[in-house]
């Protein structure tokens, strides 16, 4: 029978099944330690797992993919200090080798359900069930699908690439056009899928501005002869060292910043890309040929974030998960024992994600101490 007091996200229909068909419950409560289930092993999930385990709590860390921290591993250098992304990722993964942390790779979570005494059950896609005292959602973001901005020709013209693809070229230490030549000119376009009513995303993704500055500098370091342009609406250099990077980009690397949106990209006869824009500082339309057009992709809630936020009844803006309040309870939800960290709530920089994960860990430890 369906519990009349069932809250959004609670699903107990499996109890109606014959015993043989019911999901297998794996009880993970050795030594009666409190158990925290963390869903998503990106930087937020990994950092929270490390911090919680250090406080002698058992952690079950679930990751849908085979690899941990995929978004981080796709990066080359990190702003603003140009430190190596792989080194950071590997350091975090090393720290996960803690006796109280169990990592479940390739284990997508179907839903989480609150049961008696504010305990939780976590249901995996392969019908396993784990019990936990608290659940932390770290299901993160995914990048905007650039094909939705059809006028920019991604997936149609080979010279139109995404910031992720450029990052991958940096990792390979080989930047080239389809013909294998070094690009003579590269144009970056900000806010692809962010601050854009047409695609339904009015919010700022926060990291694209500085990422473009970082990538433009990396490009000039590898290919000093390449002309680099960055088209922007306004540059939001809000973090420590960001404004300085922006200045260095202009003064030392001669990177040209143009205030204007690109309205259209088209292929040219010689395999390049023609862009049209308006330089709004001089009030004139502009047409330019480039070898590569790099689309700075914004962040959107990941499928996992959307699915779990919906099933738990905690959907916030734009499909992200909604916290209890943005000031004092940003890691809490209105569901007792269900916490949030990182980009499942909104776009964040890596620095902020790690700080937020530590904050969530502390809130969870406080919560467990009162149970």
């Amino acid at each position, binding site marked *: 029978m369906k519990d009349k007091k069932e809250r959004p996200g609670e699903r107990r229909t499996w109890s109606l099944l014959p015993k043989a068909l019911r999901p297998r419950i794996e009880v993970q409560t050795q030594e009666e330690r409190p158990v925290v289930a963390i869903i998503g092993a990106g930087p937020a999930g990994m950092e929270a797992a490390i911090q919680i385990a250090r406080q002698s709590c058992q952690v079950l860390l679930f990751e849908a993919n085979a690899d941990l921290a995929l978004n981080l591993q796709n990066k080359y250098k990190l702003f603003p200090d140009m430190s190596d992304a792989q080194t950071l990722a590997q350091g975090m993964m090393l720290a996960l080798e803690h006796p109280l942390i169990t990592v479940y790779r390739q284990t997508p979570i179907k839903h989480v359900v609150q049961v008696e005494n504010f305990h939780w059950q976590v249901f995996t896609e392969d019908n396993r069930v784990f019990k936990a005292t608290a659940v932390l959602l770290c299901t993160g973001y995914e990048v905007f699908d650039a094909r939705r901005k*059809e*006028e920019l020709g991604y*997936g*149609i013209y080979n010279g139109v690439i995404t910031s992720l693809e450029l990052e991958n070229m940096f990792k390979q230490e080989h930047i080239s056009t389809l013909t294998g030549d070094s690009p003579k000119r590269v144009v970056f376009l900000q806010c692809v899928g962010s601050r854009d009513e047409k695609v339904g995303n009015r919010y700022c993704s926060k990291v694209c501005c500085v990422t473009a500055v970082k990538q433009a500098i990396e490009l000039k370091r590898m290919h000093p002869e390449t002309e680099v342009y960055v088209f922007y609406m306004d540059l939001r250099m809000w973090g420590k060292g960001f404004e300085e990077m922006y200045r260095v980009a202009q003064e030392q690397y001669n990177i040209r910043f143009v205030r204007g949106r690109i309205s*259209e990209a*088209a*292929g040219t*006869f010689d395999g390049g890309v*023609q862009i049209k824009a308006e330089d709004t500082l001089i009030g004139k339309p502009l047409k330019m040929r480039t070898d590569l057009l790099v689309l700075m992709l914004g962040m959107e809630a990941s499928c996992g974030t959307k699915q779990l936020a919906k099933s738990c009844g905690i959907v916030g803006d734009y499909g992200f998960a909604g916290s209890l309040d943005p000031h004092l309870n940003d890691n809490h939800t209105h569901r007792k024992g269900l916490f949030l960290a990182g980009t499942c709530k909104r776009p964040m920089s890596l620095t902020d994600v790690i700080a937020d994960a530590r904050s969530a860990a502390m809130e969870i430890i406080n919560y467990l101490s009162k149970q």
Partner: protein
Amino acid sequence: MSKRYWNQYQKEIADDRYFYERSCIRQSFFPGSEAAFLKILREELGKDIHDDVNQHTCTGIGYHSDVVPFETTMTVVARLFSLMTQAGYENYVPSCVTSFGVFTEIVETWKEQPALLEKTRKLLKETTGREFNIPKNIVHPSDIIYKFRFELRDRMKYRLVNRYTGKPLKVVEHIGCHYAKIFPKHGVGNAEFPYVLAGMIEAWGGEVIDYPERRHCCGFGFRQYLVQQNRGYSLANTQKKFESMQPYEPDFILTNCPGCSMFMDKWQYVIAEMENKTYDKDGYGIPVLTYEELAGLLLGYDPWTLGLQLHQVQSERLMDKIGIPYNKNEKFKGVSGKLLPYPEKPEHLKV
């Protein structure tokens, strides 16, 4: 075209029983196109299409030039719908892309503002005593040819292949702005990569050219042309497109809008006479065809009945490439059988 997303943007196109509305300017500039469309639908596809003798303007040019107020346009359009209703049809097919834009805009407006629909019904009733139903399906004739492009291909005598080289002909397609730029959902393939003409070209053996200024205005743009002082802008826009497509050496241009057909054809003469510049390597210009003319040619219709001799850029060289026979002596023969006066030859553009 395989990388394009047009197949995500399909639209409902009625199968049969169409009410046809003719264009104000197409009958003057491309007089064979509408007759060819009716013939193709009736004789090749066996469709029921009604060509009403009492039809009239949709006011599109006046509306987009801010000469005719929107309330007037709605009432005039309502009268056209009343003719459709009276004739017992539900699928409206306006020949002109601007008319298509006007109708879709008005029907969408009525959906959003039912009070305007009621006001229009009242105005029509008071002024003419007529009533109307809103069409169930409004499509452009190019949508219908697109829908049946494979059926037509099976009946065609010729393919878009250069008989001397065996290679597909290279075709520039140009879609009228009012086809999909007002409401992308009403265009096959949406506004950025429309497929309605590209689908015909590919189905009939040609290759579509994607050139940098493909989405640029043809040069009509209403105010650019209608305000005489602005005509330089009109010419400059068309020139920009030709400069952009020239390196690809297109065999011809295919359009689905009266304005686009006219300006891309006629401005080639003006540019040639002003600048001694043509955009094919032999000085003849690039032929501009309507989709009905192209379908008719490939089906084996007589090119002079289709009206190709009335274009500024002549099509004999294109027909030679495809292998379509034509009689030079009958090029300017009128319906009465008498020869009409030959047009004066341009100084620079070869004909």
